[in-house]
């Protein structure tokens, strides 16, 4: 602890901070631009000027930038002194010389850090009478809008984009006051985290282009704390709506998970919720067409189908909440419930859960992953399957070189100095994947091979760490030396991190990664082991499932089922046309609960309109076993509601057409699944109040209440109640610091921008006031004796006539729902089949782009060829989940013709 | 025509006449307030707006007569009737002209005082039965105000009684043939008139209602014809006090003979009614404590002094 003096008052502050952090943590309103809690200080904007005094006798002091001043014992500053105040106001005045008169048409207006800081500094009148500098703008792709005139040259964008996220195509150009932040030429910003520029930029240079399509000011948005459904990491988001459509997604700060950032799939992939293809009414198939049916009748009819003695089976979904899956299981009975994934995937996830639960190695959270100093990725294209993990790993790669700076007593926050020492160097970072991945650019050694060969590399590394393990037979020299250097680097590190996942559908890969981690653990290393899984609630659903879709197919083959209930699952997309038809034909009646119209809903007898994350409340479990609550953003003016509500009504007597409250369902689920006990603690129950007040979903400045639906009826209806959460759907409620899982927006007096988050944290950049939301369901037991996996696969030998086809992942396109969002759609690549040059030549294929034919499930597929020389011989890669490649089960073998 | 029939006719005439005058006052008051405030007042319904009264009556009869669920039902219903009954009964002793009096009681003044005391119940019961804090406060204020001013209202009249040597109203009028009582009993007149304002809780003494602080006080919860009874009761009260002032201090029906006595009476009475309205147009409401201290610390000693001096002079003259 250090004692510092701010305006002659003494404060105890933690060591190793700078004075800006200290002032903000203590609640002072000090202006700043270039500093960011995750990007640290460079002292570029000169906005946090304070007066620094030598000692108590020093009456004059000197102006210093608080962000560059260490908070050491005896530091004495003044924020309020007139000179400091005038300095900051003058500085803003200079920055504003060229700032355009744009606020009314600027998307940042109302949540602009520059607006806040200007007011805070006291500057209010532009005295400069000469001309304003202008810039031309660039086209930056479907996600971001560029308005360079508004720039105040704080450098935050390039510091985030280049230094933090590893982007290559945004930079700073020109000199002196012509400085320009942009690309060398117009074009799409390629980095997967470009959307964060919206929040990082203190003013409106980079704004959300999807929001622009249906622009709404921050104060008019009704938001709910939610969890991203885009991948398995469970990043926290704030989803906001106005007039019944989702308008944008912002990062919800969770110090344990995603921190300040979010990937572009999560941020811009929300638009499918507003799609015209949404199912908004309960539908029934009448002679080939779907017709809406009366709410009351639908229950009676479906109930009748499922009456006494009827054979009913249900297929769950890894993108539906725990509650929905649980109620489906309750409705159809334990033995008739099938997890909505293939058996291959199901068993892989079971294995992952098994390692999480029964292993002895900690699975770090996304935020903790940043703290490891050596990384070994085993068979996972992290950038595309779990993008935010890639961002964390990029930070982890900086830890080792940073130590050099720490050694000469440069604190972590002094970013410019650290960068000067570190330059482009990165720490030990090894990747073993099927083909070249984006993280290769920071890797110290990459290996491309068949999943079995990746697993063999893993086993070899484990064996090098623990000599008692059986050695890997028939190792070639190259991988032997690679495995030695990986083992050496991991052993040299303080905190090695092993990353793996299910994306290659290989049990061997998963087991090899666990072996490496176990071996390191035995060497006393503080090792972390992260697995990624395919979908938002893959872990949660698998916890509730014993059997999976292939079991369901086998069962209906044996005996026809009367009713099949499909929960938020497009079978055609997941298991392909052949299997889907096989199962649908053997069931007399098919009932689907679905968000959007798809091939499955087009083959059903009844379709219930199920809510997406925007219209439902629920709990999902991420890849590390963290259960997190997401809340519905609004009650839509149609029949859409959470799947669990439909299921609960179907379960009850017909007299009640109301579902039970969320907390009742949760209690029932916990009672039947004691291992889910902790999900009760993920968020307050619906009867939680602060004083007598609920927690509002809208800010107190929310406008248009007496007018927004006045065209329909001039008498305003009563605002809807939310029985499932302690939150109100309006601005009414407690407007202070709310419980962290229930905070719907960040606002504090004088802090209208996203930076208001400072006020919600115990100290800036630290945990939220009552802890970060989410509860981990399983923790490792370090003393446990975990068994090694001894099943070492044999090396892969390419066959001459057949190719093994493996999935290649794309951040845009490989996830089913986000791929339907217009902005994301623009970024989805053309479908292709990837081969290395060697293999292509051998098959007689010509240049890139040529047509390639292959067969899968007796159907002919035709795609264009893409040459990817990093792919090993005998392996072809197909982009997973694109429209053209949906329904394919990986891996499979096929012959290829040109 | 037998005496009984004449009597009944007088009763009916007085009853209808007074109620009609009270109702008409609704229009008169609004028009006169407007005159003193440089406005026109109601001038749209009928010639000069005189059918405004009809419109108001129709409106008040057709308004929903709502009894809130939380009130003391019986008392709530009875309360507004009391003021009507007591005030109308008081008119029984008013001699409008020679022979035109319902009951020529020899304790006329005492009957009047008794009736006006009973009138206090209407406010207390209404305020209590409404089960509403504003009404209750209004009721409490009303009770205190009316009981206090009752005291020196009575005392202020004693001078007149001493001069006339009788409680009989007709006797008091006849006694003023030489000189109206207002001259020897000027202080008595002033005190009586002030007390009369307070008794009828008219502006500026409308403290039990005080809409700006008590949102209509004791009759907050009343609507429809029950409210109407309070409303008409108040105008009856004005008429009564004006009539009493006329009788007691301004020679009742006495006047030059070119006009019939009843006309003189009505002229005088209406003059006082207009004074009531003028006061409403001009004076602000005092605070409750000001009202009480004014009554007990100034008016009561003054009334006693007036009584003492009158009594002494009368005794001395004998």
């Amino acid at each position, binding site marked *: 602890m250090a004692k510092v003096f701010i305006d002659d008052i003494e404060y105890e502050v933690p060591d190793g901070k700078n004075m800006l952090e200290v002032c903000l943590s203590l609640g002072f309103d000090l202006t700043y631009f270039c500093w960011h809690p995750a990007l640290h200080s460079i002292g570029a904007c000169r906005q946090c000027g304070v007066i620094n005094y030598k000692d108590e006798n020093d009456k004059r002091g000197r102006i210093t930038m608080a962000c560059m001043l260490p908070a050491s014992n005896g530091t004495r500053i003044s924020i309020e002194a007139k000179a400091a105040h005038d300095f900051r106001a003058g500085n803003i005045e200079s920055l504003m010389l060229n700032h355009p008169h744009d606020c009314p048409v600027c998307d940042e207006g109302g949540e602009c850090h520059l607006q806040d800081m200007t007011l805070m500094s006291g500057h209010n009148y532009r005295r400069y009478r000469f001309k304003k500098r202008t810039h031309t703008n660039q086209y930056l792709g479907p996600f971001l809008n560029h308005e360079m005139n508004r720039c105040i040259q704080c450098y935050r964008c390039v510091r985030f984009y280049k230094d933090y996220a590893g982007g290559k195509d945004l930079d700073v150009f020109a000199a002196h006051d012509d400085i320009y932040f942009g690309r060398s030429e117009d074009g799409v910003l390629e980095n997967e985290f470009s959307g964060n520029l919206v929040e990082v930029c203190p003013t409106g240079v980079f704004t959300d282009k999807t929001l622009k399509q249906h622009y709404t000011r921050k104060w008019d948005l009704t938001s709910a704390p939610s969890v991203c459904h885009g991948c398995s990491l469970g990043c926290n988001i704030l989803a906001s709506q106005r007039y019944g459509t989702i308008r944008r997604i912002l990062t919800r700060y969770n110090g344990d998970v995603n921190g300040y950032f979010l990937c572009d799939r999560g941020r811009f992939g929300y638009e499918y919720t507003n799609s015209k293809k949404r199912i908004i009414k309960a539908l029934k198939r009448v002679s080939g067409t779907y017709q809406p049916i009366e709410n009351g009748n639908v229950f009676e009819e479906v109930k009748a189908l499922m009456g006494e003695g009827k054979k009913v089976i249900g297929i769950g979904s890894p993108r539906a909440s725990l509650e929905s899956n649980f109620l489906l299981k309750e409705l159809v009975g334990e033995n008739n419930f099938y997890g909505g994934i293939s058996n291959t995937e199901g068993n892989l996830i079971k294995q992952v859960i098994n390692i999480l639960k029964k292993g002895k190695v900690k699975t770090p959270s996304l935020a903790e992953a940043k703290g490891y100093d050596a990384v070994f990725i085993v068979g996972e294209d992290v950038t595309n399957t779990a993008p935010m993990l890639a961002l964390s790993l990029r930070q982890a790669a900086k830890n080792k070189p940073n130590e050099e700076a720490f050694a000469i007593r440069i604190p972590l926050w002094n970013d410019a100095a650290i960068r000067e020492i570190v330059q482009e160097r990165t720490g030990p970072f090894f990747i073993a994947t099927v083909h070249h991945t984006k993280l290769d650019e920071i890797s110290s050694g990459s290996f491309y091979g068949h999943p079995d060969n990746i697993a063999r590399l893993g086993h070899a590394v484990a064996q090098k760490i623990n000599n008692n393990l059986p050695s890997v037979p028939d190792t070639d020299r190259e991988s032997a030396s690679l495995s030695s250097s990986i083992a050496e680097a991991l052993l040299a590190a303080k905190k090695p991190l092993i990353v793996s996942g299910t994306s290659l559908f290989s049990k061997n890969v998963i087991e090899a990664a666990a072996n490496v981690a176990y071996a390191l653990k035995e060497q006393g290393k503080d090792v972390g082991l992260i697995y990624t899984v395919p979908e938002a609630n893959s872990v949660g659903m698998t916890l509730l499932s014993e059997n999976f879709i292939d079991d369901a197919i086998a069962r209906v083959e044996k005996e026809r089922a009367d009713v099949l209930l499909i929960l938020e699952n497009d079978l055609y997309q997941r298991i392909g046309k052949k299997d889907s038809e096989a199962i649908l034909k053997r069931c007399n009646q098919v009932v689907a609960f679905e968000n959007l119209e798809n091939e499955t809903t087009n083959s059903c007898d009844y379709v219930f309109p199920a809510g997406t994350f925007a219209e439902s409340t629920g709990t999902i479990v991420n890849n590390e076993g963290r259960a997190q609550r997401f809340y519905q953003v609004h009650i839509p003016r149609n029949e859409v509601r959470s799947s669990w509500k439909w299921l609960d009504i179907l379960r009850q007597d017909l007299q009640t057409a109301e579902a039970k409250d969320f907390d009742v369902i949760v209690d029932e689920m916990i009672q039947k699944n004691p291992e889910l006990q902790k999900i009760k603690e993920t968020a307050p129950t619906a009867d939680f109040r602060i004083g007598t007040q609920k927690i509002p979903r809208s800010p107190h400045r929310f406008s*248009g209440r*007496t007018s927004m639906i006045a065209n329909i009826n001039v008498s305003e209806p009563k605002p809807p109640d939310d029985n499932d959460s302690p939150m109100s759907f309006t601005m009414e409620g407690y407007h202070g610091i709310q419980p962290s899982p229930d905070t719907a927006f960040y606002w504090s007096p004088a802090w209208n921008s996203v930076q208001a988050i400072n006020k919600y944290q115990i100290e800036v950049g630290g945990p939220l006031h009552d802890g970060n939301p989410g509860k981990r369901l399983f923790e490792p037991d370090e003393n446990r004796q975990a068994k090694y996996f001894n099943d070492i696969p044999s090396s892969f030998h390419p066959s001459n006539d057949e190719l093994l086809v493996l999935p290649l992942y794309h951040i845009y396109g490989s996830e089913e729902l986000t791929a339907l969002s217009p902005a994301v759609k623009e970024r989805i690549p053309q479908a292709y089949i990837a081969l290395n040059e060697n293999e292509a030549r051998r098959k007689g294929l010509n240049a890139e782009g040529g047509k390639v034919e292959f067969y899968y499930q007796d159907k002919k597929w035709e795609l264009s060829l893409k040459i990817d020389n990093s792919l090993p011989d005998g392996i072809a890669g197909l982009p997973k989940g694109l429209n053209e490649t949906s329904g394919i089960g990986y891996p499979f073998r096929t012959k290829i013709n040109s | 025509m037998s005496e009984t029939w004449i009597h009944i006719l007088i009763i009916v005439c007085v009853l209808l006449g007074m109620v009609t005058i009270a109702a008409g006052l609704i229009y008169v008051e609004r028009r006169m307030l407007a005159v003193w405030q440089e406005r026109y007042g109601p001038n749209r319904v009928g010639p000069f707006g005189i059918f405004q009264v009809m419109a108001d009556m129709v409106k008040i009869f057709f308004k929903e007569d709502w009894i809130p669920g939380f009130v003391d039902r019986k008392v709530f219903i009875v309360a507004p009737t009391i003021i009507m009954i007591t005030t109308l009964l008081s008119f029984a002793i008013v001699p409008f002209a020679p022979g035109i009096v319902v009951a020529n009681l020899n304790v006329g003044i005492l009957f009047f005082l008794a009736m006006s005391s009973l009138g206090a119940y209407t406010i207390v019961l209404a305020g209590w039965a409404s089960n509403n804090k504003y009404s209750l406060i209004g009721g409490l204020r009303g009770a205190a105000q009316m009981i206090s001013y009752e005291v020196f209202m009575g005392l202020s009249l004693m001078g007149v009684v001493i001069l006339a040597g009788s409680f009989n109203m007709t006797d008091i009028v006849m006694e003023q043939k030489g000189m109206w009582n207002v001259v020897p009993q000027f202080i008595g007149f002033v005190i009586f008139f002030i007390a009369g304002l307070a008794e009828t809780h008219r502006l500026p003494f409308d403290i039990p209602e005080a809409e700006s602080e008590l949102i209509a006080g004791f009759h907050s919860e009343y609507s429809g014809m029950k409210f109407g009874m309070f409303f008409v009761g108040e105008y009856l009260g004005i008429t009564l006090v004006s009539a009493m002032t006329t009788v007691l201090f301004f020679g009742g029906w006495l006047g030059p003979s070119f006009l019939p006595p009843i006309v003189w009476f009505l002229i005088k009475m209406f003059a006082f009614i207009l004074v009531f309205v003028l006061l409403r147009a001009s004076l602000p409401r005092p605070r409750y404590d000001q009202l009480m201290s004014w009554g007990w610390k100034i008016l009561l000693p003054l009334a006693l002094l007036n009584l003492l001096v009158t009594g002494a002079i009368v005794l001395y003259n004998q």
Partner: protein
Amino acid sequence: MLSSIRTVWLVFLHMFKKRVTIEYPEKKAFLAPRWRGRIVLTRDPDHNERCVACYLCAAVCPTDCISLQATEDENGRRKPEYFRINFSRCIFCGLCEDACPTYSIQLVPDFEMGEYKRQDLVYEKEDLLIDGQGKYHGYNFYRVAGVAVGVKGKGEGENESAPVDRKKLVP
């Protein structure tokens, strides 16, 4: 006491003064040009909608009776997709006019907008938009703003210099 009597006397004298009431339907009152009555949306000198859908009027409205949705034309010029004022809630306080950065929303001297049905008091953009500039002439927000949305090119606005060449490194 005496002052009270004087008050009564003075009030009494008002009887003989001229009435201030204007007998409305027959005689019309004078409304000052800045009288706060019916709300209109005006157009700029180039005859385009002035409203840029910034939502400030809606935010400042004490009765929350203004709602709108922003949209953009092909040039990126922002305008309201719909603009609705619920006059049955409006209190004609004029804060929306104060808040408007483009002189678009203006209160005009007209109050004769009574309706028998409350629903008829809900005005849409078509009902609000007038053909002229209202009280404030000659102002076009997009000439002074930095954005280029078809009104002027980058650097062509009032008080703007030409766009900088970002490939230039000369000081």
